[in-house]
């Protein structure tokens, strides 16, 4: 045992080394303990300190010492419990006595690897700068040149197609008695296509998300479809899907994801005979924008009874999703085999598309898919996407921004004259600064047929504390203070699924209004302006040149 007399501050950090400094107002605090009870990191703790005053109150030196030991709330400098700045303490403090303040001089990355384990976290790229998308603006405002529409008055039908669309000459049409008919028999495979709302909720798994969050999102999606008649769909993420949902009619609003862990798929396959409807689509995940080349890991402590049942695995074991799909060694084999298998699972009635992380090799994948008659699209997830758990280095330094990636792919399709055949889905940092509609519309005008959002929904629907200054970002440890990414009922019951659903509905309603505001001056009310890049300009000449759009200043 270490000798007591030798203990000092050797090798201790100071709060100045930490990313957030907890400012605690002693004069306001009533020591009720709400802050320390709620802190997910136990970064603040009650303690006692000595106050000692030495004074002299007489006309000549007459020392007087007053000593007091007082109860304080103190911030720990233990790197394992560092304050992440989530602000749950501020939220619950009745007296405005406590608040974490960002410390720009912090040295977190120098220290956050005890035991030789690199820093892992959830959240998003810690880069508070504006994304490329936020440099884009809609500069084609038709008043007298095109029929200008009124977003408030005109009826809009903002829809897109998911699934491969055959060019007219390849459609097996024939003319019979002066009527256009589809040729019967197996003349030509007609791929399944879905008409959906062009902004979808991206893949977040049951497991990564808490049951209240997931069900809230799902319920909101159902509401949008059934009450508001907005065909918004949601991708399940890897980790299975609750059988009750699988077997309900709502399944048609969901895209089922299969990823390298194949979690939950035996449950899904067994449920297929009992399914009353097909899912919207199948997404094969090859990569995630937030952490390209990094797999997933659901920590054993998050693998509760619920997760184990839905994923079809034992309770309390680590669940790794490897960075790559095993048993597949080439793009042809990997993509063709998976698409074929997943199409077959649902009798070729469901569109199947792969999702990759943003990459300079995206065009290679795209052209491969173009040759594959069963490929229903390509989803590209840019570097500013979010994740539940990843290595910091993957989050911060790996990946490709979505704007130029989607643009390159679209232009490649356009060069081949096939831009209307294979829908591109763009994701990753959409709505980074809150401008969901503007970012989504910009991506559509750059060439995306649809846009997928995940992180934005966490923020908007459940008040996620995370931001690009590394606030909170502890989605990986199961102690999400909002109850979004945890399997602990004590935490996730903070979240009311009805409220989440209501926010989802509100978000999509307002998104819809904003999209109309953007599309109306283009004179578009029914046709999505996919690739309509003459409506788009950048306020940065380099961005404009790279994206091959106009530059305005």
């Amino acid at each position, binding site marked *: 045992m270490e000798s007591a007399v030798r203990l000092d501050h050797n090798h201790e950090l100071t709060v100045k080394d930490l990313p957030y400094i907890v400012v605690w107002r002693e004069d306001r605090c009533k020591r009720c303990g*709400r802050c320390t009870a709620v802190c997910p990191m136990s970064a603040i703790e009650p303690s006692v300190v000595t106050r000692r005053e030495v004074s002299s109150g007489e006309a000549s030196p007459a020392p007087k010492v007053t000593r007091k030991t007082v109860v304080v709330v103190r911030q720990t400098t233990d790197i394992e419990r560092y304050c992440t700045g989530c602000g749950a303490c501020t*939220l619950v403090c009745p007296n405005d006595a406590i608040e974490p303040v960002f410390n720009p001089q912090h040295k977190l990355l120098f220290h956050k690897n005890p035991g030789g384990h690199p820093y892992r976290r959830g959240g998003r790229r810690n880069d508070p700068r504006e994304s490329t998308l936020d440099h884009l603006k809609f500069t084609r405002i038709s008043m007298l040149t095109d029929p200008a529409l009124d977003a408030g008055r005109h009826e809009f039908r903002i829809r897109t197609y998911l699934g491969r669309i055959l060019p007219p000459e390849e459609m097996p049409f024939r003319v019979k008695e002066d009527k256009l008919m589809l040729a019967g028999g197996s003349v030509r495979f007609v791929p399944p296509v879905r008409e959906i709302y062009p902004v979808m909720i991206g893949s977040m798994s049951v497991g990564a998300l808490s049951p209240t969050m997931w*069900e809230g999102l799902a319920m909101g999606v159902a509401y949008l479809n059934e009450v508001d008649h907005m065909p918004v769909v949601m991708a399940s993420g890897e980790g299975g899907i609750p059988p*009750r949902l699988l077997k309900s009619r709502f399944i048609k609003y969901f895209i089922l994801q299969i990823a390298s862990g194949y979690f939950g798929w035996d449950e899904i396959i067994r449920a297929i005979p009992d399914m009353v409807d097909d899912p919207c689509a199948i997404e094969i995940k090859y990569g995630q924008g937030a952490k390209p080349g990094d797999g997933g890991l659901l920590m054993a402590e998050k693998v509760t009874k619920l997760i184990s049942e839905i994923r079809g695995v034992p309770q309390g074991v680590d669940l790794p999703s490897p960075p790559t799909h095993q048993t597949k060694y080439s793009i042809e084999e990997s993509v063709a085999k998976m698409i074929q298998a997943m199409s077959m699972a649902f009798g070729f009635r469901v569109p199947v598309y792969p999702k990759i992380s943003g990459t300079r090799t995206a065009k290679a994948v795209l052209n491969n898919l173009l040759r594959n008659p069963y490929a229903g699209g390509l989803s590209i997830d840019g570097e500013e996407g979010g994740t539940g758990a990843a290595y910091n280095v993957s989050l911060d330094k790996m990946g490709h921004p979505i704007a130029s990636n989607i643009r390159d792919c679209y232009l490649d399709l356009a060069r081949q004259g096939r831009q209307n055949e294979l829908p591109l889905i763009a994701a990753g940092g959409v709505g980074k600064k809150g401008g969901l509609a503007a970012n989504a519309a910009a991506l559509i005008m750059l060439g995306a047929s649809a846009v997928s959002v995940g992180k934005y929904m966490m923020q908007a629907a459940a008040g996620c504390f995370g931001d690009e200054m590394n606030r909170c970002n502890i989605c990986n440890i199961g102690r999400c203070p909002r109850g979004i990414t945890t399997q*602990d009922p004590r935490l996730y019951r903070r979240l009311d699924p*009805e409220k989440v659903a209501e926010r989802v509905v509100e978000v999509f309603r307002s998104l819809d209004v904003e999209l109309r505001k953007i599309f109306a001056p283009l004179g578009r009310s029914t046709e999505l302006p996919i690739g309509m890049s003459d409506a788009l300009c950048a306020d940065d000449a380099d961005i404009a040149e790279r994206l091959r759009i106009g530059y305005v200043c």
Partner: protein
Amino acid sequence: MAKVIEGNRNEQRTNSRVLDEEIREAVREGLTEIHVVANGQHGIGGRLWGFPEPVTITVEGPVGQRLGGMGIFGTKIIVKGSVSDDVGWLNCGAEIVVLGDAGNGAHNAAAQGKLYVRGSGGARCDTMTKHNPKYDPPQSWYFRDVGDTFAEFKAGGIAVICGVEPRNRNNIIGYRPCVGMVGGVIYFRGPIEGYSESDVRLLELTPQDWQWLKTNMRPFLRAIEREDHYRELTKDAGAWRKLIPLTAREREKTRPFTVSLGEFRKAVWEAGVGAGGIFAEYIDHPGTVLPYITTGQDRRLRPSWNNGKYAPPCEYTCPSGIPTWQRTRLIREGKLSEALELVLAYSPLPASVCGEICAHLCMQGCTRGLIDRPLDTEEFGKASLELSLPERGKPTGKRVAVIGAGPGGLSAAWQLALKGHSVDLYEAEEKIGGKLEYFIPKRRLPRRILSAELGRFRKMGVSVHTGVRVDRERFDEIYASHEAVVVACGAHKPRIPDMKGASDMVPAYDFLRRANTKEAPDLAGKKVVVIGAGNVGMDVAAEAFRLGAAAVTAVDIQEPASFGKEREIAESLGTKVVWPRFVSSWSVKKGKVTFTDRTSVEADHVVISIGDTPLTGFLPEAVHVKKDGWIEADEAGHTTDPKIFAIGDAVSPGLVTHAIGHGRQAALAVDALLTGRPFYRTEPRPVIPFERIKTAYYEVCKAGPVELDAEANRCLSCGVCRDCHMCEAACHYGAISRVEHEDGTYEYVVDDSLCIGCGFCAGVCPCGIWEMEENP
């Protein structure tokens, strides 16, 4: 007779500008009745201002757009047939009668005046009509029906749709009317298919409405020559309804969710996926929402009053396991003698060991050292010299042999005797005490103190057999005649390195043993080298100086393990400690010790002090002796023979206090064996981490003469509740209370229904008793 103005002249259509000028010219001339035969001209009958007399214009033939546009009070226009778009556009008071249908956008932006239409209105009629409070509101009357998107952004004015012979029998006001309507009213008679619910609401007519309608119906019907319908249209107020805009306040209050999410969840979602939602099958908690601050089972953390769960560092670090914290507590309670007597339950030699020679690991561990200096346990030891003999347990009649009367053997014998067993203690030497007696320099352990304590030991009733060297034969006898044998023979076989000159080197224990007798070598002026600079080596060095050595060098192959008083004394006398050095030879003749690095040091006398192993030849084969010479035994002394226990230096080299502790542990194991109880190897309590002790409560004390009372008050009571009530006071929720039990003990308990798991009790506890743990 009306003046006729032709819209066609010489088979040429008159320009709209020209026709307009002709009408104005006629009016200027004072004509009040004008008949226009139109041919698609724009704006017929508008802007006839600046004339005193009312003008009536009748129109036949195809009319252009915006007939009566910007018309003013006093203008009356009667169109014999249908009109094109925007009839009455921005009407400022004209009365316009259309005896056919009106095109799209009729009465668009009208502010005053009347529009009577005998037929239907087209799409987008009555948009942007408004009511200037200075005038009567505009009226738009449609005998049949109107087209889609009626009354958009209507800000005032009255529209009446009579619904006679409608084109669409299911909907007389078209698709999606009233978007953005903020003023005015629409009376209609007949079925409709929806309206902009976020803008207007649908109501029955009030008596005032009905009265107005009936009053104004007649002039309308007269104007369109359909008076025969009056009875039909005014016979039933219930056939009419009206749409009026929501007020600004109402608009604010509009529920954006016509179906609330709660309703949707129950009626649609759970109806589709099952009661309780998609995860209901897997969760066993209520579906209610929890606040951030929770109590009871819903707390993430809960406090636990773990009094005694952790060992205070003094007890933990003392190899003999002496609980100094108990002594200080008893002293604080005023029970000084009890406090001192306590030590005899752990060691038979507190004054000699604690009081004199011990390295005091307990003091190194003492948390008080963080504030000023550790508690002075040496004083506690010294104060224990005169303690009287503790009470022995009831004789059990069981016989145990202990071989070796060094510290370990004495400890084992003492403990066994305390438990009432008959103990035979065998010692090869003439005196008991082992290394304490024979090897420890007198300077460090005054022999009167040792004698006093050994005297107390002898009173314990142990049968001491000195001068008995136990060999194999004797061992077998002992083994046969006792129920257990504790081997505490120490280590007496010096390890001698294989090198030139080794045979002339003196083993440390031989040296020390002789140094305390008349056989002591005369080292006057000699240069002495001690190989091995551990604590024994330091004792050797100090004794060498005492015996006159001019210089002593202690060498070691690594950083020397010596510490504490031994090292201090030796170095204060002038011992030079050098390391790392590997001795390669000693030339007695040259008086030089040479190292492997070819350096050397002068040496007349070399003492080898690199450790000793036990002499184990007397043990039966059943007892396993390890390759390196030590007896294999665990922390309770169990050897490979269940009846034989081995302790102290015979098992591994250690301090005197280690041997004493080992002896006590072995005694517990032997006792268990003899009484037939199972021996549970209790995991030692973990030591309390320093940071759990709140040193902030304590003031720095100046050093001075050591008083036991003062020392007891300096004790921080690590890991042991001092009953100060800080936790009770700190708890904002009053969740903590102190409960006293009948036996006089107490505990602090938590009311889980009040506790939020904030950890303030743990944060303020001076002793580290309260601990926050995950709430399962």
